[in-house]
Every structure is written in C-alpha cells, then in structure tokens.
C-alpha cells in the first residue's frame, strides 16, 4: 500500500502548492491593484484616517478637516470641510466619505492623505520618531480675488462659467461655474449627507449643479470663434493685414447651397476689412474666410489652439470640438462657431491667451506645487509651451483687431481705464432650429502698459431669464470678464 501512499503524499503537497501559488498571485502580483481599487473601502478609510492636507490659494487654505462624530462603527475618523465651498468647487472637486473624491481631491489624494510614495521616506522617519502621520498640501495657481469676481458675476446672471489664465505661463487664475454646490454638504457619511448628495444629482436638479461647466461642458462658441478664423486667415496668408479689404458679397450664399448666411441685424459687412468685420461681428466675412481656407486649414489652426484634445490641468478638461467631416457650407458655419463646433470656457480662454502672449499658447495648469507636511516642496510645475498658433507679428495684428472690438465695437463694456483690453463677444445659437435661448460669450485679455498680458479670460452665460434679444456677449458676459481682469490687475499692484 505504500506506493499509492507516497503518491497521495505528493498529491497533498500539490494541493498546498496550488494554494501557495494562488496566495502569491493575489497577495503579490495583484496586491497593488486590489489595494488601490476604489471600491475597496480601505482606500476611503485610509483617506480619512489622518487630518487631510489642504488645498491652498494665495497662501490661505480653502479647505480644512473636522473630526467625524464617533458613532462606534464609523471607520472614518476625519472628514473634509471647505471654506466658500461652492465658489471653489470647480477647482477642488470634493472628497466625501460616502461618495468618493473627484478633481484635485482625487488626483492629489496621495499627497493630501500623506500616503504618496514621494512621502514614503518622510513617513518612515515619522513612524520611527513616533510622530503622527500628516497630509501634504496642494498649492494652486488660482487668484482668490479673480475667482470671487468671477463667481459673484456669474451668480447674478444665473447659469454660466468663467475660466481665466495667465497667458505668459498658462497658470489658471479663476475657474468658476454656476450653479455650484458646497462639497461640505455631503463630505460625511450620514443620512443628511446622502440627502444633500441626492438633491444635487442631475435627475433631481435639472440645473445640474455638480457639472463643472468651466472644464466639462462644451458650448457652441459662436462669434468668439471668429478670433480663431481670423488667426487662420493671417497664418495662411489669405489676408496679411487687419485693414485689407476682404471680398465679401452681401448677401452671402453658402457655397453649394441656396441658403443665405445672415448677419445679426443690418450691419455694414460688404467687402469690409477683418478689423471692421470683427468689430461688428460679421458672420458673412468670417464664414467666407472659413470656406475659402477650407476645412483642413481651419482644422489645423483650431487644433493648434487646443481644439479636439483634452487638457489635463491636471484636472481633466473635456476636448473642445472642431468638426472633421464637413462640406464647404458646414465649414463656413463652423468658422463662425456654429454647426458642430463646441468649446469649453477653458478652451476659449486659451484662444485669448495665445493671442495675448504674442502667439504662443502655454499649457494651462492649476497646481503650482505640492508640499510635504513640513511645507518642503515635493514638486513644482514649470510653465510649458503647448503650441504656437500664431506668429508674433500676426498675433499683434489680431491683438489690434480685438482691441478695436473693445474700444469701438460690441465689447465696450469690458473697458478698464488705463489698461489695454482686447476681446470678442459671442452669441451662440443652439437647440433644434436655434429655438433655445442663446449663450452669451465674451473672451478677452488685458495688457499692461509694458505690453505684457497678465490675464486672459473667457466667460459664458447661459441666461435662462433674459429675453432672447437682450442676450449678447457684450451685455451679459463682458462685465464679468472686466471684473475678473480688474481683480487680477489690482492684486498685482
């Protein structure tokens, strides 16, 4: 009987071996993916086990933490709190015990909780010296005054969004979205938190307050897109100056169709220069420029400005759209920001910033640096060039055109005494047969006497309350842009 006994011994050994192999697989090979799986509650437990580090604006924290009331079985010790939570929500996102984390709270979770690998050495040292673990800080590039101006301006207008950038570096200065939400309301793990959360969901609130309109909503950009079209005309040599007459008939019939491309009202657009066309916002002139250049050249220029790609700031921004498959008529419509063209507010701020920065587009970013708990800098974001949509001379031509818009055209409400402001209004139609209330747009930049530009801004207002005729970028959006630019300039002084 001993021969089969030995075989059974080997068989039992193999059973144990199979278990050992499986154990190595789940505890070594798969360990990291299991440990960091967001459904694994330990991730959240760890996140709230220590006082969370702060998100910082202009040296002051806009976040905090509070000890969760101990009810015995709650395994989360601390919860997140926010100062002016609704105003900053498009920047911070939220960190909720019950509902997870988003945006900066999620992307820099490792730093904020103190669990990031970059803090490993320090944590080990702390463990040896018996110090409690702490979270690090995320220092943002935002400007509190500009953010406040943006948020206040939007609140008075209902729904909308603002994005402001420093054109020279790409640093994001303001990122506001209304209606907003206070992430403190559902930061915990109680029934009240769940109620607050449910109330904010799109199915219960058609205004969708949790949508980050500045980064995640794409709107038809309307006439503000004409800046891109003008840039394409200059870059491709279709016209070489701002004041050269264009050959534009009025009425202009869309190529290949019998449809007339109309202007808003009875404005002088026949054969006018690009400067005059931008000033009064002629659809015919820029529609024809788009059709003359063709979809490929238009697309190339739009993509240089950042269209058709996501931006990681590091919070992800949706890709703005410049359509790829179009006929000539559709190209003309797309070139005035209609048809399927759609842009995030951040994208249009990038357009203004590239013009202001002498044609160079900087990569937008909102995290200046990451700090260890003892304020040592762990990593610093260096400004980075994204592309060069315009030559310096063409950028200056386009600047002079945009400055005319503010001085004499549709954008006069953006004027700031003692500062040169260039801008472009937009009123974008949307909905089936353009039946819904249009979006009011304004993009602009401010230029200091030394020629440097500290801020470029894009504002969009979805004004549901105003009457259709009243909506124009110049009336609704430009004053907000002006306040934001002024706040940035004032804070520099």
């Amino acid at each position, binding site marked *: *009987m001993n021969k089969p*006994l030995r075989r059974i011994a080997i068989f039992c050994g193999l059973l144990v071996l199979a*278990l*050992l192999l499986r154990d190595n697989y789940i*505890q070594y090979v798969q360990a990291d993916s*299991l*440990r960091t799986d967001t*459904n694994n509650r330990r991730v959240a437990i760890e996140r709230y086990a220590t006082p969370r580090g702060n998100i910082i604006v202009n040296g002051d924290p806009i976040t905090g933490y509070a000890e969760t009331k101990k009810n015995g079985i709650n*395994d989360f010790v601390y919860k997140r709190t926010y100062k002016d939570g609704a105003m900053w929500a498009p920047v911070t996102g939220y960190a909720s015990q019950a509902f997870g984390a988003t945006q900066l709270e999620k992307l820099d979770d490792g730093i904020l909780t103190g669990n990031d690998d970059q803090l490993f050495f320090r944590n080990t040292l702390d463990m040896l010296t018996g110090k409690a673990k702490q979270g690090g800080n995320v220092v943002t590039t935002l400007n509190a005054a500009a953010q406040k101006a943006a948020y206040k301006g939007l609140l008075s207008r209902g729904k909308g969004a603002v994005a402001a950038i420093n054109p020279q570096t790409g640093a994001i200065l303001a990122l506001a979205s209304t209606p907003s939400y206070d992430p403190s309301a559902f930061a915990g793990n109680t029934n009240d938190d769940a109620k607050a959360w449910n109330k904010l969901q799109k199915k219960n609130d058609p205004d969708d307050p949790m949508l980050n309109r500045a980064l995640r909503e794409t709107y038809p950009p309307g006439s503000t897109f004409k800046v891109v079209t003008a840039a394409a005309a200059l870059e491709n040599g279709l016209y070489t100056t701002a004041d050269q007459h264009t050959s534009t008939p009025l009425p202009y019939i869309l190529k290949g169709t019998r449809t007339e491309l109309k202007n808003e009202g009875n404005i002088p657009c026949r054969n006018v220069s690009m400067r005059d066309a931008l000033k009064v916002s002629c659809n015919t002139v820029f529609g024809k420029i788009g059709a003359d250049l063709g979809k490929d050249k238009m697309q190339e220029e739009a993509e240089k400005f950042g269209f058709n790609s996501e931006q990681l700031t590091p919070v992800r921004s949706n890709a703005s759209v410049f359509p790829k498959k179009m006929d000539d008529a559709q190209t003309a419509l797309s070139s005035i920001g209609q048809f399927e063209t759609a842009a995030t507010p951040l994208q249009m701020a990038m357009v203004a910033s590239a013009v202001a920065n002498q044609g160079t587009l900087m990569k937008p970013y909102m995290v200046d640096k990451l700090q260890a708990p003892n304020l040592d800098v762990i990593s610093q974001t260096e400004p980075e060039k994204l592309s060069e949509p315009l030559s310096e001379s063409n950028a200056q031509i386009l600047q002079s055109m945009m400055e005319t818009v503010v001085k004499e055209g549709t954008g006069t409400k953006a004027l700031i005494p003692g500062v040169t402001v260039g801008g472009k209004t937009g009123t974008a139609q949307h909905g089936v047969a353009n039946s819904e209330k249009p979006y009011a747009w304004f993009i602009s930049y401010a230029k200091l006497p030394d020629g440097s530009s500290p801020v470029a801004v894009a504002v969009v207002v979805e004004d549901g309350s105003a009457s259709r005729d009243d909506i124009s970028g110049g009336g609704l959006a430009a004053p907000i842009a002006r306040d934001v630019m002024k706040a940035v300039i004032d804070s520099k002084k």
Partner: protein
Amino acid sequence: MSSSTNTPTHHTSTIGSIGAPSRRNTELALLVFAVVIPVFAYANVGLAIDDKVPTGLLSYGLGLGLLAGVAHLAVRKFAPYADPLLLPLATLLNGLGLVIIWRLDQSKLLQSIHQAGNAAPRQLMYTALAIALFVAVLFFLKDHRVLQRYTYISMVGALVLLLLPLVPGLGADLTYGAKIWISVAGFSIQPGEFAKIVLAVFFAGYLMVKRDALALASRRFMGLYLPRGRDLGPIIVVWAISILILVFETDLGTSLLFFGMFVIMLYVATERTSWIVFGLLMSGAGAVGVASFEPHVQTRVQAWLDPMHEYMLSRAGVQDGIIHSEQAMQALWAFGSGGTLGTGLGQGHSELIRFAANSDFILATFGEELGLAGVMAILMLYGLITERGIRTALAARDPFGKLLAVGLSGAFALQVFVVAGGVMGLIPLTGMTMPFLASGGSSVIANWALIAILIRISDTARRPAPAPAPSPDAEMTQVVRP
C-alpha cells in the same frame, strides 16, 4: 514472501527500530513555541488596538499553556511514541485562531451585526472541551484497530450525521443556503465535521476487507486496469450520496470532501490508478450536472468567476431570488491589501467581510494582517500536519491503520484546500471552516479528535516492537533484513 512485497519496508524509516527515541521532549520544546507565539500575537493585537497589553493576556497564556500541557502529558502517558509534530502544530494553529477571533471580537462593526463580540471566550471553552475529548480518545482508544469492529455501525452513524441537517426542525439555515448545520438546545452543530472521522473509520474497515476483490481487474484499457463492473457498486453508492448532499444540503465542499476521501482511500487500498480516473470523471460529471440546475451552486460559480460583478449586484441590492454576496470580493481585497508583509495584527479592516469573518473567512484576516508571509506559513503548517499524517500511514503496520490515517489526513488536506482555495478565489466558495483557526465548536472538537486518532496510530506505528524472544534463528533473521 516475495521480494516485491518486501520492498516498501526499505523506505519506511519511521518504523521504530528497537530503542528508538520517544521524541516526547522534542514535542515539549515545540509546544513551548506553539504557546509562546500566540501569546505574543495576542499582546501585539492588544497593543495595536488599545495601545496596551490586553488584560486577559495572563489568563489566556496560562489557559493555552495549561491545555497544551494537559494534552502533552496525556500523550506522554498514553501514546509515548507518537509523532512529535502533530500536537504542537495543532496547538499553534488553534492558538493563532483564538488570537484572530479575539481580534475580530474587538471590531465594533462585527459586534453591531452580531458576528463577533464574545466568540473568543467561547472558542477557548470549545478548545478545552476538544482537549478533553483528545485526552479521552487517547485514554479509551488503546489500539486503533478496535475501531475496525465498528465498521458498519460507523456507516450508519455517518449517514445519520450527514442527513441530520435535513431533518425538519433540527436543521438550521445559518449560512445563507448551505444546510450543513443543526441546532440542538441553543447550540449550532456542524455534524459534517464529525461525519468526516466516522466515515473514515467505515471506509477503512470496509476497504480493508474488500480491497482484494476491488483490486481485481477485468481488462486493460489505455494502460489502465479497469475494475470489474460489479465492483463499481461501492464507489457509485458513495458518489450518489455525495450528489445527494450537494443537491439537498447545497454544499459543494462537504460533498467534494467525502467523495475525495473515499477515492483516496480506495486508491490506496487497491493500488489501482483506474479508481482515481473514475473518481475524477464521476466528481466532474456530478459537479457539472448539479450546477446545471441548482441556482445556489450557480451563484457560487458566478461569484468565483467574476467576484466584482457579484459585489456590484450585492451593492445595488439586486433582488432576483438569489442572494448576491460581496464576500468573495471583500476577501480578495483583504488579501490584496495585506500585501507581502501584512498590515500588522489588529491593523487591518477584514471586518468589512462581515458575515462569517471569524469562521469561514478567517484566513482573509490572516492574509490582511500577516500578509503573504503569514498565510504561507499557515499553509505550510497545514501541509505539515497532512504530511505527518501520511507519514503515519506509511509507518503503520496494519492495513486498517494505514487506510484510516491516510483517509483522515487526505480529508484534512482536502478541507484545507477547499476552504482556503475558496476564500482566496482559487475555486468556488463553499461553506466550510478552516480547521483549528475558525471560530466554531464542532470544527475544533472534531479536528482535535482527528489529531488524537492520528497520534494513536503513529504511537502504535512507532512503538518499538516487543523485544524478540531469544531464538536460535536470530542470526539468520538478521541476514534477511538488510
């Protein structure tokens, strides 16, 4: 005697030659470690959870030490030549199990859902009962061959034990589907744990008598000697009973365990590989067949193939007549979060497994808090118990002892494989307990009885043969024995 039957004796070195050491002092030294390690682990848990050495440390340490001491003295007295590893290994596992059960008792979450709270004191009491039974077995069972007399009584006993959970009013549906519990006077008992031992006695007695007949071959087919048709009877009966267990008690683990044990013993008794092939074919066919219509088995398989999906269904509260459980995924997360070295005792979150965290799923807590290193050590301990058991079978001089030892060891190994494999997601999950570690009276009592029987067989096997009577043939005998 032909030379072929003599061959095995060349290798069975554990057959004690005259004057072999009893190894009782080795056992005692190992036992000291087996008691001290859990005591340190206990202190470790207390320090991690409350920042202080637990108040019960002394009584726990003394309690475990006393139990181990009593068991050791009993072995020293009644089975002095027994295998020295079995008792320390079982003590260590039992002690570590107690520590982890106590650790899970401290979880507020588990307390709030009545899955823990005072399980550790109860487990300590069951351990005391188990040691009492261990001593009783060693005391009353002077020779394991006595059990051979009860072959057919054992068969009846095993069947009764297996069918008890199906008796109306007695069966308790505690484990969400698997009906393997009965409740008597407020106690929940898992008769299957005891049936394991009783069945091994029956199989050993039966196969010892019938093995010659069962080994007869009818013809050769693809290199295998096929058994005669009429000899297929017993295996078909056992198979049918296993299938019935699977269908009516919906427990794949118990079913697999008993059938596997029978096939192992049949193979050892007859030395015919064809029985293994038949066994594998029949269990495969049975499992697939039952799974095709039994929804409970199907969910278990689903949860095994895609635990994440099952977790999502459970979280979403999907009501489709099947109980969806997030446990399989929770167990995997516990293991994964432990990583190579674990979080340290008392610092994990395995309470998230909730139901049966301290019984069927206790290995997950070891995985999280002691890591890959700890679980591998635990698995090696189980492996050692099994291999010592099979070594005992090799050393045993009588066929009944060999069969009984290999049956018990094989069943032990299969149970560890089925439970640990289920918790780690290697095979579908079944409702069985980790021997010695898991909280539960039936399991710990039955497994100590199993160790007692193995110790009895190994004592008989290693016991020095009576001094040979002075014989004029002595010289010649030595020539025969190389």
